[in-house]
């Protein structure tokens, strides 16, 4: 059992999950958040939602170091990474990023993560204090203890050289959560034309699937938003069904989906590596096959 574990999380689901883990491994827990709930934390350091983390990160990291935690658990995402960077610098440690598995041992933490775009799994260990950025959904949820309101609350205000001028909704950001999808249609460059994007979407709609895509499709072709991109940042998907459209099956992509229940693949190249790694394969030109599939599934 650790003496003290800190959690940095703003998203409700991440806060619930990381606090569940923290309560299980430490006798004292501290939550740093701009959210309202406590999740059973012994004390809370709170900053305003109207503030940017960039303005308070240095101050929060100073408070973190003063608390001498054994471990700091951070939510995934831009804010989690910013806080983890500041906390690791303040605690003179090297963070374990985007981990998909962790063992909390008395002297150190051992964690696994995907590297080289999914080509390999790296197992690494960090002495204490350890700073960890956890991929979502890796710790068991536990109900917080009943007693409430005992938490000590400290509010932290921003100051200094970073000033938030305004916030807005980001139109370019997507809203998809692939990690919770039961069925995913994956789109690769073999979709061949942006004209086929609405068809892929129609097919996904017919089978109740979310759309995911490969790196080039998101970053070079810009057919879909980046949140739909499979195969990096430790995101291991476990849908019941994965249907690949025009994906050749490079190892970097396959690692992200090889835990899928059943894999279906459509591709024009019968020697595409994905055909060896799928359960059901359809060999044909996407341009002609896609409309036929939609017709049959209607």
């Amino acid at each position, binding site marked *: 059992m650790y003496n003290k574990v800190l959690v940095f999380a703003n998203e409700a689901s991440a806060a619930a999950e990381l606090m569940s883990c923290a309560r299980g491994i430490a006798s004292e827990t501290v939550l740093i958040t701009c959210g309202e709930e406590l999740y059973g934390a012994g004390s809370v350091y709170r900053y305003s939602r109207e503030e940017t983390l960039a303005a308070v990160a240095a101050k929060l990291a100073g408070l973190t170091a003063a608390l001498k935690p054994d471990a700091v658990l951070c939510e995934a995402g831009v804010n989690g990474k910013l806080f983890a960077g500041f906390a690791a610098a*303040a605690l003179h440690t*090297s963070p374990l990023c985007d981990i998909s598995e962790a063992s909390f041992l008395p002297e150190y933490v051992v964690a696994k993560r995907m*590297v080289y*775009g999914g080509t390999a799994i790296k197992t690494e260990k960090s002495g204490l204090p350890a700073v960890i950025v956890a991929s979502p959904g890796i710790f068991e949820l536990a109900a917080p203890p009943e007693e409430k309101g005992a938490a000590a609350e400290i509010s932290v205000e921003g100051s200094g050289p970073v000033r*938030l001028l305004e916030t807005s909704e980001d139109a370019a950001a997507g809203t998809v959560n692939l990690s919770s999808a039961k069925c995913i249609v994956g789109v690769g460059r073999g979709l061949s034309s942006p004209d086929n994007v609405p068809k892929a979407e129609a097919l996904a709609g017919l089978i109740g699937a979310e759309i995911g895509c490969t790196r080039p499709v998101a970053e070079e072709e810009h057919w879909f938003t980046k949140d739909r991109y499979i195969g990096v940042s430790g995101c291991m998907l476990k849908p019941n069904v994965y249907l690949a459209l025009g994906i050749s099956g490079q190892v*970097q992509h396959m690692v992200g989906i090889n835990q899928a229940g059943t894999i279906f693949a459509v591709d024009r190249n019968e020697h595409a590596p994905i055909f060896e790694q*799928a359960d059901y394969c359809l060999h044909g030109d996407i341009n002609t096959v896609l409309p036929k599939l939609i017709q049959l599934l209607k």
Partner: protein
Amino acid sequence: MKILVCYKYVPEESEIKINADQSLDLSGAQWTISQYDNNAIEAAMKLADDGSSVEVLTVGGEALDNSKMRKSVLSRGPSKMYGVRCERCGDLYATAVLLKQAIERIGGCDLVIFGEGSGDMYSQILGNMTGALMGLPTLNGVCEIRNTGDGLIAKRRVGHRLETLQLATPAVISVTSDICRARIPSMKEILGAGKKPVEIWNDSEFAQADGRSEELSLLAPPKAKRLSICYKDSDEGLESFVQALRKHL
């Protein structure tokens, strides 16, 4: 404005082979500039005005001495390359400690730019750590940056929220890969790159932090056994494929 872009040489991902024991064989993989760093370099070139300079800094092994790799980075516009050579490069903390000292040796700068994350490890955290160690205002997720003359205005993407921030310099930012498209250097730019100055130091010239983390293993994940039942694009083939799909939904 003096701008410094930190970048990394990484092995070409598609040339990494997997050995029979699931370990990785990197020996046949050529070096390349981590692709997100190309966006960071281009963002710096776009931000730079007439009185500005853009230089680059890297920490790494043999790739630093590879003339093609030197030209590859300098052909993208920066006027000088700095490098810290390390035989066995350390973890994120050790690298951040080295970068901080190297930036100080360069004489500091107004803005340090990092890419979104390295193409090999993609930790997306080195810029944040370096900025924190230097005690400078530090941002990540920056998808737009402009110079107003008396400071910088940055847009920072946090999930669905877009923050517009004012930032005093000196500062450290990590930019997203979609901040701008990376350029494809012309033959003239590649030839010109060979004449640009390069300054390389050894990590032994700097104070070094002990490793705080240790790699225990690096293995390709096991492949799941799959049925690999193949159908052709015929009425019968399509029907069977759709039937199988329906059965599993």
